[in-house]
């Protein structure tokens, strides 16, 4: 059986339904299954990636041609993001392997795998209602995992997330309804080709609903109030999944829908502005945080603001820079969450002040954290430098100097709070040496990401050659419609 895009959905689902049965036999096997599935999908991704980059692959489900059946659309953008997601998912699994020691472990792995499957489904599907279903799979898995540690705050964070997430899903369902009412179809490509059938007032309403509904998932200001709580209360590997995978899927879906239906200069301008506001507010808020994981969460919002801003500029250069930034953010923020998870574990407190002196007691974990912090600020020779530079160059070629100044200002703020932690880590202080060590699987996971950060930092061309086709695919709605409908 040759690897095809539907395997991304079918294989993890099969494994998730199998886990309860396997759990009756052996608990250790349960922990291995998600890793094996993600390893298989990573292998498949690497096989499929070059094909998807050349020509979009349309996979028909249930043998009915679109618009009558559901089809998966594996274009260059989806290929880029899905490959990133599966590889990163595997690394996160590696980290979880020793990190998650709380029962019910079996349920953790089911939810974890389905969360990644949902995010992959969002990126792959070519049908708007199917997109809604995958959004809900992702959302429900996220709510449950946010509350996984079962303390006061995590339950509250999860409830807040659920409340805001329900608004998002209601608004998105309403959008689907309006689009179906006027066009009589649900396939994204078919919908886009019939977008003229929607009267102007209904289209305006749908745009409002999409911005609110998808904006909640894509974490744009002021709809991202749930995110810092969810990120910081969830277990650290899940924080990495949220920052590295879930938000990427949501932003992709948001931008795809905007580009397909509402691509007017005014809307793009609006997206640039909300991206900019998100970036600045989030960086300012991150500066004021006392908890390390909350700070990472706000920093993550800021980074996604930068991505949305760059996507809103709407040129090929800016879009490919945004995709590069997405890649870097996924890898680096995952690493920061990994390291922060063990820093919190070793120091026994979530507060930033309590990491003082850990740089000498736990040198390897601290080193990885510092490396991630320097990379995300955008210092050479790390990968974060190139993506930020590309974003700035692409904006400069549009002549928007004010935006560049504001981005640089936000970067300075970002540098301040990250360097503050690094400074604390390497301040000498007498602390009781802690016998607990970071396990090998955790170090291995961080090591893999560190190598990626440095290699991409030194040879950015390894990655940038793929960004061009991915960006063109995202921008070219005409091609999407033609290939999507045969």
């Amino acid at each position, binding site marked *: 059986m040759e690897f095809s895009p539907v395997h991304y959905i079918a294989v993890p*689902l099969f494994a998730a339904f199998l886990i309860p*049965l396997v759990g009756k036999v052996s608990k250790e096997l349960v922990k291995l299954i998600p890793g094996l599935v993600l390893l298989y999908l990573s292998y498949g991704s690497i096989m499929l990636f070059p094909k998807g980059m050349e020509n979009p692959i349309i*996979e028909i489900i249930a*043998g009915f041609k679109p618009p009558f059946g*559901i089809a998966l659309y594996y274009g260059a953008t989806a290929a880029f993001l899905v490959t990133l997601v599966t590889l990163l998912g595997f690394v996160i699994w590696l980290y979880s392997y020793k990190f998650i020691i709380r029962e019910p472990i079996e349920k953790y792995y089911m*939810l974890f795998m389905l969360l990644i499957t949902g995010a992959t489904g969002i990126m792959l599907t070519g049908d708007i209602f199917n997109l809604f279903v995958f959004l809900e799979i992702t959302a429900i898995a996220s*709510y449950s995992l946010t509350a996984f540690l079962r303390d006061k705050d995590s339950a509250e964070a999860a409830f807040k997330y659920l409340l805001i997430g329900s608004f998002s899903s209601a608004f998105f369902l309403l959008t689907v309804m309006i689009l179906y009412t006027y066009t*009589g179809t649900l396939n994204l490509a078919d919908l886009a080709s019939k977008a003229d059938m929607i009267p102007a007032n209904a289209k305006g309403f749908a745009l409002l609903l999409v911005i609110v509904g998808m904006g909640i998932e894509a974490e744009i200001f002021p709809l991202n109030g749930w995110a810092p709580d969810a990120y910081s209360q969830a277990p650290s590997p899940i924080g990495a999944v949220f920052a590295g995978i879930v938000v990427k899927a949501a932003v992709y879906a948001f931008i795809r829908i905007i580009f397909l239906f509402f691509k007017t200069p005014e809307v793009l301008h609006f997206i640039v502005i909300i991206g900019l506001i998100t970036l600045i507010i989030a960086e300012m808020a991150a500066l004021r945080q006392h908890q390390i994981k909350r700070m990472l969460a706000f920093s993550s919002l800021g980074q996604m603001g930068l991505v949305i801003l760059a996507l809103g500029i709407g040129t090929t250069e800016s879009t490919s820079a945004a995709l590069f930034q997405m890649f870097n953010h996924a890898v680096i923020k995952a690493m920061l969450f990994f390291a922060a998870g063990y820093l919190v574990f070793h120091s026994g407190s979530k507060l930033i002040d309590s990491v003082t002196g850990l740089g000498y007691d736990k040198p390897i974990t601290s080193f990885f954290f510092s490396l991630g912090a320097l990379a995300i600020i955008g210092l050479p020779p790390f990968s974060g430098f190139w993506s930020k530079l590309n974003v700035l160059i692409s904006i400069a070629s549009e002549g928007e100097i004010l935006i560049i100044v504001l981005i640089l200002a936000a970067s300075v703020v970002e540098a301040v709070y990250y360097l503050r932690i690094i400074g604390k880590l390497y301040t000498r202080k007498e602390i009781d040496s802690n016998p607990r060590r970071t396990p090998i699987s955790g170090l291995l996971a961080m090591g893999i990401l560190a190598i990626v950060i440095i290699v991409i930092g030194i040879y950015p061309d390894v990655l940038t050659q793929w960004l061009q086709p991915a960006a063109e695919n995202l921008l070219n709605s005409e091609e999407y419609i033609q290939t999507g409908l045969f």
Partner: protein
Amino acid sequence: MRKAVAILLLGIFGYYFASIFLSLPFGEKREGVGKHYLENTISETGSVNTVTSIVVSYRGFDTLGEVTVLFLASTGLGAILFDVRRKKRNEQNASPIVRTTSTVFYPMIILLGAYVFVHGHLTPGGGFQGGAIIATGVLLMFMAYRKFEANHTLLSVIESLAGLTFVTVGLTGLIYGGSFLVNFLPLGTPNDLVSAGVIPIIYIAVGFKVGAELTVVLDDMLKTIR
């Protein structure tokens, strides 16, 4: 203050919302994929119930997602309520009238649920509705008898096997029919119980799965007060 702001916001939203839908003619035929489904359901899927043919066949992928959502809900609920403190519950059973009626109705409700999901491709209903009916029967027993226990191990095995059946049918379609969830069985005569290819198989699996999952959800919640 909070109320006034909420009313104002909802007023603006509602006005905009209503103005879109009030300009929409009610009860008129619209062109779209629905027409294609109505005209081709029997020839393409063999199911006389068009809603079922859309749910299980044309948009079967959605249904797989839907089953996953329910599975997630029962798994997630299990994780959230894993070690919630148990509280003492009133041990007294319900009145004899409720108990007798429940005992008599319980098997009949299960049978009705099974009927609904087996005939999903012929009559209104299907796996989700049938499964929900079955869970209602169990709920009735929970209410009548305080000590009524659901067998968690059995339920999770049913849940898993039913889910595996669904995905396996899909994968078999991928191997033999060239696309995931495609029908690989003969369509049969319309309006026969054994017809419509894989639709009844999927709907029976869904029925079992939904019944088991909703029972697990009810049981998880009841356990917090046992």
